[in-house]
């Protein structure tokens, strides 16, 4: 698979992978390092068709412990996966799933007002969805087999892993 991308293609895909990974890792670590962080406030601020689902989730303290744990560490793992290029395709899928959940909770709808202020004006497509599309691109144009730990993993793991994992 080497040399299938031009140098410029590989470089920009790598830049995109590291930037998105950085964003996820940082978001995750900030939450992990803050013992009082909780997604409850964000979930209570939900709008759109799934509002009551997310609000009721926020109302369940036991469930919130799991939600917080999963969200924090999923963000961290996706970030690590993308930056060091380990299980990079799986990381893309994980990142996309997280972004889908954020979008369902905070869809950019006309008239939807959020407490967490967005810094721009959006209709349907917001930055979460742009990042989601970027992860889609990274999934179909994997670079970690070239630059990243996956380069090693493709040699040792069965080829079946290449479909969704590396």
């Amino acid at each position: 698979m080497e040399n299938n991308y031009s140098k410029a293609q590989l470089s920009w895909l790598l830049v995109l992978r590291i930037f998105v990974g950085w964003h996820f890792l940082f978001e995750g670590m900030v939450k992990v390092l803050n013992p009082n962080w909780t997604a409850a406030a964000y979930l209570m601020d939900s709008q759109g068709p799934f509002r009551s689902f997310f609000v009721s989730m926020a109302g369940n303290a036991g469930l919130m412990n799991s939600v917080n744990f999963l969200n924090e560490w999923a963000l961290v793992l996706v970030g690590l996966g993308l930056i060091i290029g380990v299980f990079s395709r799986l990381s893309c899928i994980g990142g996309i799933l997280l972004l889908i959940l954020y979008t369902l909770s905070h869809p950019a709808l006309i008239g939807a007002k959020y407490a967490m202020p967005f810094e721009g004006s959006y209709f349907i497509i917001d930055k979460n969805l742009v990042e989601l599309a970027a992860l889609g691109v990274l999934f179909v144009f994997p670079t970690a087999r070239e630059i990243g730990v996956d380069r090693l993993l493709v040699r040792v793991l069965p080829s079946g892993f290449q479909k969704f994992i590396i």
Partner: protein
Amino acid sequence: MEKENNNKTNDQQEVKKTSAVGRRDVIKTLVTVPVLGAVAYGLVKTRKVSVLNRDISDVFKLSDKSAVFLQPMANGKQIRLGLIGFGIRGKQLMRALGFAEPSYIDTLIEAKKKNPDDTRYDAFLEQDDLNVVITGVCDIFDKYSEAAQLTGSNIHREGTNGKFGQAPKRYKTYQELLAADDVDAVVIAAPDHWHGTISAAAAKAGKHVYCEKPMTWTVPETYMVRQVVKDSGIVFQLGHQGRQTASYQKAEEIISNGLLGNVNLIQVCTNRNNPNGAWVYPIIEGSNPQTIDWKQFEGDPERIKEYNDYMLSNKLDKYMGPDDRSKFSLERFFRWRCWWDYSTGLSGDLLTHEYDAANQIMHLGIPYSATSSGGVYFFKDGRTVPDVLQTTFEWPDRNMTMLYSATLASSRNRGKVFMGHDASMEVADVLSITADRESERYAEKIKQGIIPTDKPFFTYVPGQSKVDAVTSATELYFAQRGLLYTYVNGKRYDTTHLHMREWLECIRQGKTPSCNIDQAFEEAMTAHMGTRAYLEGRTMYWDKDKEEITRG
């Protein structure tokens, strides 16, 4: 085009396996790892700025203890309750005990159908079973009495078409109910002029008492009720459910730790602006001299004499009546809070909640003096109690004043604020503290830009333990919008439910409730001082040694 081809080849390509790992491979495998170092550097720096620079634990010492509520004991004995009074508050108290009118359940189910976010129905079903049974009810309005029986039998919390249990017995008078052997304890939600009389009678009959506020209507009965309750040894709880507010417990700790500096002024308020808030309640259909026992409504002869003696000897007859007490009146029956003949006015109805909160937080006791002013300025519907009232209470030994300011015709929000030399604290379901720009305690932190003075620097949200750092912008935003609720062990609770639960558990465990007879005595006397100051137009003083209200 080129990219698409690449993609296909990538997916389909069988990567050659080779065991040879060269130097170039190692570099290509690990080249992005140093990026983690950059992220880590950013995290450390960010944390320093956002967390460590917000650390105020050296000047703001507060435990991370969460609110404590008396927990129910396992296998507690079932308590048999009698209910006296099934008006607006009586209905609310019964719901807090787990018994709702079927028609009320119907409206909750309907509301949930219309709006799935309306979770009142689920919340009611999930409310803990307090292990009580309603064995007797008493209301002097037939319709209310029958509704109370039906409600008491609604043991499965069902709507109109539900299955009901055994209906509690209906008693025509509270005396008959108190004489019943199958009643262990009573809930009193009668009008103010009956609170003391029924409480004392219940205590004498050996029944535990949960009584709505205020404890008494006249000053003389206040001593009497205290004495009887103490002599009887029953468990008495006054209905200030604010006692179960988590943030009040934190407020107490904050003040005792000196975090506000010397508290010299407390401002508490009532801000209402609608007929219901001004006690203009609907006249219920089916009410007439045949269905209402007016003779009982008039009151206890001894109480009426105490009231008349005080009013007439102080030439306050303009505040009495104007109708004769014996004259049947639906207005006076349903809107009794509007007339001193039955009511304790703003002072007894709403000031008491505010005072009791301040008393819980600062252990103030009965004030040294009370001065009041106000009038009937908006609801000129024939009422004798004022709809605008200001009362100031002084505690010279504590170097502080409490100002109560109420209007029933403006809902502008004025919070419960404790003002100190170093900071002021606003207490509601959440609690927030704003530093004073002239503060000495926080001067250094203010200078360093860590503690702001234009907005709260600390916010306590029940259930969250963070106590050592300046509240971040997001936390503050949500706290101010009240988006975060009070939970006990992960479950949302109604304070009235918790307050009644505490009373029941004290009966089972032989403990003393938070709003016990001593607290109730302080509450009632304080309210009476405010009322007398208003009626007589002069300052009232409290003689601590003689335990008497005196005039200046």
